[in-house]
């Protein structure tokens, strides 16, 4: 039976579990930090020796941990790219700018178990010779910022943070920095600009890879909240045991944010790849299915930027056969294991692990119009294709969803989206384009029918007739 596996969420929502340090310590808190600080050097077969910090860095790599923010890149590899020879200070930033529509997992950790994040950060700082780190938290989480500040003060008072942590001779300091409502600050180089006190215009890569030229042009690690929490558990469990959770190349656990048209939306922690998309939506341990009388129409599987999946789709995925040979097998949509590789194989991504479900009462035109308005609002305005294009997409979809569409709008929208993706400094260009490209491709008939109906109405002399509605909901404008 598909079940939750609570590693990060182990104590969260337990009766009596509070965010203060005494409660955290009663539940074994900061033991992983003590354990990390006591890591012995490791002798390698070739006669070389790894320092304690190198051991932890190697273990994070060996654990297979992949970033939980969106890109799913190996956390250990990301750490290994850090320029350790420059002589400049190395910074660590926790990306707590949780803003991808559909995502609400980091919020739970920040508000209900802030010390878990802090412990993960202190270990990560120690392992990477970082003395100064920041938590960049969304401006819209003022209570979260206060809780974190309080938790940091508690950790400082107990010697887990500050000068000479636990007598190790190492200093680690962490400060909270608040954003102010801009989605682009979730992009790591935009976040760095914002932390430097500037507009959050993403930097061009190369040369500005954060691992080399990050905060104040110094080597910088940017990791997601959940990713940093996993570091603590890798230390506790050991890389080998941790890697047994989940599936090969998709190790560990992941908190899935489930929203939209399901009976029981919420956050569910699973072993990566051990639960299918269908189980997350329908099983009694998770979403418990759609509302009465409704059938599935579409799924956004990894935050609003991921490409939409259509009910009934079947994907060809690579599978290792018993003889070790790779073969292609047919996997229906609802049987897709919820992991990084399967969703990539299905032409989309698990992104920030946020699933938005849409049932058959929903108009895909209206849903896409809603999303495109988000991207038009959030484009930072630095690159022309994105600044202008995201707005054109939103305007085109506004028109199409307000009774003033044309049959050719489907092509028009695709044309614009194709001319944004790949032509911008950061991945926002793709984030704004992919929903449009996938919605229009997979539900083309709906977009064309809407446009054709509007054309027919106009030719009869009738004016625009329709207001923007998402099914039964009333006007947006």
């Amino acid at each position, binding site marked *: 039976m598909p079940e939750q596996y609570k590693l990060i969420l182990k104590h969260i929502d337990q009766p009596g579990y509070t965010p203060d340090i005494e409660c955290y310590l009663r539940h074994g808190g900061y033991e992983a930090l003590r354990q990390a600080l006591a890591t012995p050097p490791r002798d390698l077969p070739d006669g070389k020796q790894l320092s304690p910090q190198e051991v932890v860095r190697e273990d994070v790599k060996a654990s297979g941990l992949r970033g939980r923010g969106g890109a799913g890149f190996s956390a250990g590899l990301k750490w290994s790219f850090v320029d350790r020879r420059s002589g400049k200070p190395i910074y660590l930033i926790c990306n707590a700018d949780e803003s991808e529509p559909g995502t609400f997992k980091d*919020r739970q950790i920040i508000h209900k178990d802030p010390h878990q994040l802090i412990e993960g950060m202190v270990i990560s700082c120690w392992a990477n010779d970082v003395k100064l780190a920041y938590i960049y938290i969304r401006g819209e989480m003022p209570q979260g910022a206060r809780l974190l500040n309080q938790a940091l003060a508690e950790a400082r008072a107990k010697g887990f943070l500050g000068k000479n942590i636990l007598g190790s001779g190492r200093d680690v300091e962490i400060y909270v920095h*608040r954003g*102010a409502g801009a989605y682009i600050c979730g992009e790591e180089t935009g976040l760095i600009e914002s932390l430097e006190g500037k507009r959050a215009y993403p930097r061009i890569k190369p040369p500005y890879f954060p691992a080399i030229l990050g905060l104040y042009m110094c080597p910088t690690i940017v990791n997601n909240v959940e990713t940093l929490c996993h570091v603590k558990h890798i230390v506790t469990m050991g890389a080998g045991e941790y890697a047994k959770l989940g599936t090969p190349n998709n190790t560990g656990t992941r908190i899935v944010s489930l929203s939209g048209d399901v009976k029981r939306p919420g956050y569910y922690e699973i072993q990566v790849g051990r639960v299918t998309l269908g189980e997350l939506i329908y099983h009694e341990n998770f979403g418990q299915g759609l509302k009465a009388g409704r059938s599935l129409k579409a799924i956004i599987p990894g935050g609003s930027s991921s490409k939409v999946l259509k009910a009934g789709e079947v994907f060809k995925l690579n599978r290792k056969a018993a003889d070790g040979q790779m073969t292609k097998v047919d996997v229906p949509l609802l049987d897709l294991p919820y992991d990084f590789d399967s969703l990539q194989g299905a032409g989309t991504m698990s992104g920030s692990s946020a699933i938005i479900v849409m049932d058959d009462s929903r108009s895909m035109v209206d849903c896409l119009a809603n999303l495109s308005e*988000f991207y038009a609002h959030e484009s930072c305005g630095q690159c022309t294709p994105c600044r202008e294009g995201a707005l054109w997409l939103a305007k085109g979809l506004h028109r199409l969803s307000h009774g003033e569409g044309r049959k050719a709008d489907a092509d028009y929208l695709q044309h614009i989206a194709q001319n944004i993706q790949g032509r911008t400094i950061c991945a926002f260009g793709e984030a704004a384009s992919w929903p449009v490209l996938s919605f229009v491709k997979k539900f083309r008939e709906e977009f064309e029918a809407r446009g054709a109906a509007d054309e027919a109405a106009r030719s009869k002399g009738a004016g625009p007739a329709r207001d923007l509605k998402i099914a039964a909901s009333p*006007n947006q404008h």
Partner: protein
Amino acid sequence: MALSIPASLESQLDELVTHYPQKRSASLMFLHALQEHFGYVSNDAVEWTAAKLGLQPINVYELVTFYPMFRQEPLGKTHVKVCRTLSCALAGSSEIRDHFCKKLGLNSHAHTPQTTPDGKFTVEFVECLADCGSAPVVMVGESVLSKASIADADRVLAAGR
């Protein structure tokens, strides 16, 4: 300069500057603190921040115009943010926003925050508040209303009148 900064706030801001190797980094936190204290970010507050951090006023002003949370005019006493983005829209957030606007005589078609003439309420349609599992989500001041209903909206209205 008409700005009067209480000593306690100024020492709090001075402490903030010590968090960063470069003073300019503190500008967002300064603007948050000044907006919390004065209700909005005035030109005087921009100039004061710039002088304090050794910047040109434009370096600070361009933050106020870039980041959606900063306001250049006072807000209503009760600040209502209704989430506009998909999961909340699917759960009927536009009905709630329309209800607020209708009851307060505000324009529900406007893209910008709307404040009642008596200064009691500001209603704003905002992008994803990262609590989609509790859609529709409304923020009233700093607190989050989960699974907000029309009845919740009426309670917020009654409390703020």
